[in-house]
C-alpha cells in the first residue's frame, strides 16, 4: 500500500533508499523534518550541527572519503553554508552530496523570501525541484546519481507547500551503495589558487554538458495540449498550473538548473504564447529571455508571496476573482502559557532597554502586548549589532541596551560576535534565553541540551564556561525569579564590561511537571498582570480571570500582581 508522506518525509525516505550514510543539518522551517525522519533509519548517521556551514562541511568530509551524504536547511541557511558550498562546486564529490534547501514563499516562518534557484546559478550547482511527495523521493535518489555521474554537489530545492504537503508515495528498498575508495587527490580537493583555477574550468565544462544532457533528462517533460498558451513551470507551481489551466500546454522543469535549452526552444516554437509561472524571482523567465525567446509572466505574478490555482486562474485564465476572507480580529501566534521568555522580556521592559533581537520564538516579543524588540535580522545578529551600536553611540548607550538570543541561536552564530565584542573592549550585555532546546522549529536537541538527535545522552556544551573563556562576565538566573533576574540584568547592563546573562529555564512545553493552575480572588482590575501578555489571563469588566484550560501554573502573574490577589501555581 502507498503511504501518505509529507514532502520532507519522502526526501528522507529517498535518502535512505539512495544508500546515504551521513546526514548533518541545522533545523529550519520548512526543512526540519527531513533530518528528523532520516534519524528514524539506523543505517544513516544523523546529527544536528551547530549551524548550516558546519553541517555542509561535515557532509562534505563524509562525501570526500566515499560516502553519500545529505545536509538539509532552510533558504537562509544556504547563506550560512554558502562558503563551503561555492567551493565544493569546484572540487566536486566522491560519494554523492545533496543539499536539500527549502524556500519559504510568503514567509510563513522566515525573515526573507530569497530564492535558492539564484544561489544555484551563482554557485553553478545543479538543482532538482520535485512537485509532490513521490517526486521528492524519486528526485532525491536521482540527485545522488547526478551528483556522482557529473562529480558535483546537487541542490534539491523544496518550497513550504511541498515540504509540508502530504501525498501518496510508493517506497522501495535501500540500495546497497558501498563506500567508494578514497585516494588522496590534492588537485581536486585542495583549493589553492593554482588548483582552483583548473577546477573552475572543470565546472564550466560540466555545466555545458549538463545543459546539453538536460534536454533528454526524463524529469524535464513537455505536455502538449492546446497550443494557444504554453506554460513553463516547476515544483509545486506545476500542480497549481494543472489545476488552473487544464487546457494549457506545459513544460514541467524537474531540473531547474541548468535549463534544457533546446527543449525550451522547441516548446516555445510550438505554442502561440509562452509564459513562465514561477514564485519569487523571475529566474526561468530571465534564463529563457537570454535565449532570445519572447516570454513573460513576472509582470503579472510579482515577486512576493505564494501562488495558488485561484491566483493563476485570475492572472492567466478566466480572470475570475476568488472570494475574500472577511475582516475579523486577527489571531497572531503568541508565546505559550508558562513560556520563560515572557518573564525575561518583562524584566527588560521594566528597565526600558533597547533590545537587539534575534531568530526564535522570542521574536514574537516584537508584537503586542510585549512590543519590545528593536531589531531582528538573522541568526546571531543581535550580538554584533549591540556591539556596533556601542561603537556608534558610546558606552552610555550600551548601559540601556541588550542583545537577546536563544541557546541554539547563540551556538549557531552568536559565539563569534561575542569574541569580537570582548576583543573590541565593548561593554555590551548579551542575554542567552537558555530554554535547553531549539524551540521554534519543534524541539530539536542541540550541543547544549545534553542529548543527541535520538534523545540519547550526549556531551553537553557548558555555556557559562564557554562565555567565560571568551572573556565575558557570566551570570546565570532563572527569569521566573523575577526580582533577582531584573536586578542582575540592571547590574550587568550598567557594568563596564562585556556580560552574558544566561536566563535559564526549560521551554514550557518540555516542563512535564503538572502544576495547579493559578486563581484570582478580589481582583482590583489594575491591569498589572495583563502586561505580561499571557494568553491564560483574560480581562473582563469585573476583573481579570484565569483560563484554567490554558494556565500551567507557572506563577509569573502572581509575582507581578501588586495586591497579592493571585494564588496557586509555582512558588
Amino acid at each position: 500500500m502507498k503511504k501518505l508522506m509529507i514532502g520532507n518525509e519522502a526526501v528522507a525516505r529517498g535518502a535512505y533508499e539512495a544508500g546515504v550514510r551521513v546526514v548533518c543539518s541545522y533545523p529550519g522551517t520548512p526543512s526540519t523534518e527531513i533530518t528528523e525522519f532520516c534519524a528514524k533509519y539506523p543505517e544513516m548517521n544523523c546529527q544536528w550541527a551547530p549551524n548550516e556551514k558546519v553541517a555542509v562541511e561535515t557532509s562534505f568530509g563524509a562525501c570526500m572519503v566515499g560516502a553519500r551524504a545529505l545536509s538539509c536547511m532552510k533558504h537562509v541557511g544556504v547563506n550560512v553554508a554558502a562558503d563551503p558550498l561555492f567551493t565544493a562546486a569546484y572540487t566536486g564529490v566522491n560519494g554523492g552530496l545533496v543539499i536539500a534547501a527549502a524556500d519559504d514563499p510568503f514567509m510563513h516562518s522566515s525573515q526573507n523570501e530569497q530564492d535558492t534557484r539564484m544561489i544555484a546559478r551563482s554557485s553553478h550547482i545543479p538543482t532538482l525541484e520535485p512537485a509532490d511527495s513521490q517526486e521528492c523521493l524519486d528526485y532525491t535518489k536521482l540527485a545522488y546519481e547526478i551528483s556522482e555521474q557529473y562529480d558535483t554537489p546537487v541542490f534539491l530545492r523544496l518550497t513550504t507547500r511541498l515540504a509540508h504537503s502530504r501525498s501518496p508515495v510508493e517506497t522501495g528498498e535501500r540500495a546497497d551503495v558501498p563506500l567508494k575508495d578514497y585516494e588522496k587527490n590534492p588537485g581536486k580537493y585542495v583549493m589553492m589558487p593554482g588548483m582552483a583555477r583548473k577546477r573552475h574550468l572543470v565546472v564550466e565544462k560540466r555545466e555545458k554538458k549538463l545543459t546539453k544532457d538536460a534536454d533528454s533528462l526524463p524529469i524535464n517533460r513537455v505536455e502538449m495540449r492546446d497550443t494557444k498558451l504554453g506554460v513553463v513551470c516547476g515544483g509545486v507551481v506545476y500542480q497549481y498550473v494543472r489545476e488552473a489551466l487544464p487546457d494549457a500546454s506545459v513544460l514541467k522543469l524537474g531540473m531547474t538548473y541548468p535549463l534544457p535549452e533546446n527543449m525550451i526552444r522547441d516548446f516555445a516554437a510550438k505554442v502561440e504564447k509562452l509564459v513562465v509561472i514561477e514564485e519569487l524571482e523571475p529566474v526561468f523567465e530571465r534564463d529563457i529571455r537570454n535565449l532570445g525567446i519572447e516570454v513573460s509572466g513576472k509582470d503579472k505574478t510579482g515577486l512576493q508571496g505564494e501562488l495558488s490555482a485561484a491566483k493563476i486562474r485570475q492572472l492567466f485564465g478566466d480572470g475570475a476573482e476568488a472570494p475574500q476572507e472577511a475582516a475579523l480580529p486577527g489571531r497572531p501566534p503568541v508565546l505559550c502559557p508558562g513560556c520563560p521568555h515572557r518573564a525575561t522580556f518583562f524584566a527588560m521592559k521594566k528597565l526600558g532597554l533597547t533590545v537587539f533581537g534575534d531568530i526564535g520564538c522570542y521574536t514574537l516579543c516584537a508584537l503586542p502586548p510585549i512590543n519590545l524588540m528593536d531589531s531582528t535580522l538573522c541568526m546571531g545578529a543581535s550580538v554584533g549589532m549591540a556591539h556596533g551600536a556601542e561603537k556608534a553611540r558610546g558606552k552610555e548607550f550600551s548601559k540601556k541596551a541588550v542583545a537577546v538570543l536563544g541557546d541554539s541561536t547563540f551556538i549557531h552564530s552568536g559565539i563569534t560576535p561575542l569574541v569580537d565584542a570582548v576583543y573590541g573592549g565593548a561593554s555590551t550585555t548579551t542575554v542567552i534565553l537558555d530554554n535547553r532546546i531549539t524551540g521554534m522549529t519543534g524541539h530539536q536537541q542541540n550541543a547544549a541540551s545534553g542529548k543527541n538527535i535520538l534523545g540519547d545522552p550526549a556531551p553537553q556544551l557548558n555555556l557559562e564556561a564557554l562565555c567565560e573563556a571568551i572573556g565575558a562576565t557570566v551570570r546565570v538566573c532563572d527569569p521566573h525569579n523575577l526580582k533577582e533576574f531584573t536586578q542582575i540584568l540592571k547590574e550587568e547592563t550598567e557594568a563596564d564590561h562585556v556580560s552574558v546573562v544566561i536566563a535559564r529555564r526549560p521551554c514550557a512545553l518540555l516542563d512535564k511537571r503538572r502544576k495547579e493552575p493559578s486563581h484570582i480572588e478580589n481582583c482590583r482590575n489594575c491591569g498589572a498582570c495583563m502586561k505580561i501578555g499571557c494568553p491564560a489571563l483574560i480581562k473582563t469588566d469585573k476583573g481579570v480571570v484565569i483560563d484554567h484550560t490554558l494556565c500551567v501554573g507557572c506563577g509569573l502573574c502572581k509575582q507581578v500582581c501588586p495586591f497579592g490577589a493571585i494564588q496557586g501555581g509555582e512558588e
Partner: protein
Amino acid sequence: MMKNTNIIIVGVGGQGILLTSKILGYLALDMGENVKVSEVHGMSQRGGSVITHVRIGRDVHSPLVDPGEADFVLSFEKLEALRAEYFLKKDGVLISNTQEILPMPVIMGNTQYPHIDPKQEKAVLLDALKLAEDAGSARAVNIVLLGVLSRFMDWPREKWESAIEACVPAKTLEINLKAFRAGAKA
C-alpha cells in the same frame, strides 16, 4: 467517490488540527482514493490561527483548496469558523465547535470578539468541548468534529475508527473512539 472532495480544517494552534488532517489523509488513502494534505508547521502553531487543506479525488493536483471550493469546513473554534467561511462552496457544509477562544487582541481589550453566527446555510454548530469532556478529555474536540464529518461521507464506520487507531497515541485511543462516536451521532 467520483468528484473531488475539498475539506478545510481550522482552529487555534495546539487544538490537534494537524492530527485531524493526518487521520483524514490516512483514511482516504485506505479507501483507495488519491489524496493531498497541506499542513502548517513552525511559528504560526504557537496559539495562532492554523489551517490545513485536505483534497480527495482522482483529479487533485494542487494541495491547496481554493476559496469558494470547499465542500466542508471543519472548525474547532467559532472565530476561526467565521474566518474560514469564504472557503465554502454555496452548498458546502460548515461544521463548527461553538467554543470561543479569545485571541490576544481581544484578551488585551483592544477589540471585541465577534459574537455572530456563521452565514453558511448548511451548518452544524455544536458544543464539541462538552462532548469531548464527556468522552474523557477536552483535547478530543478534534475527534468529535471528525465524527460529525463522518455523517456526511459514505465511508464505513470501521474504516474511520481504524484510521483513528493508526494515528493517535495508543493510550488515548479509547477516549478518542468515544469522542468520535459522540460526534458521529450528535
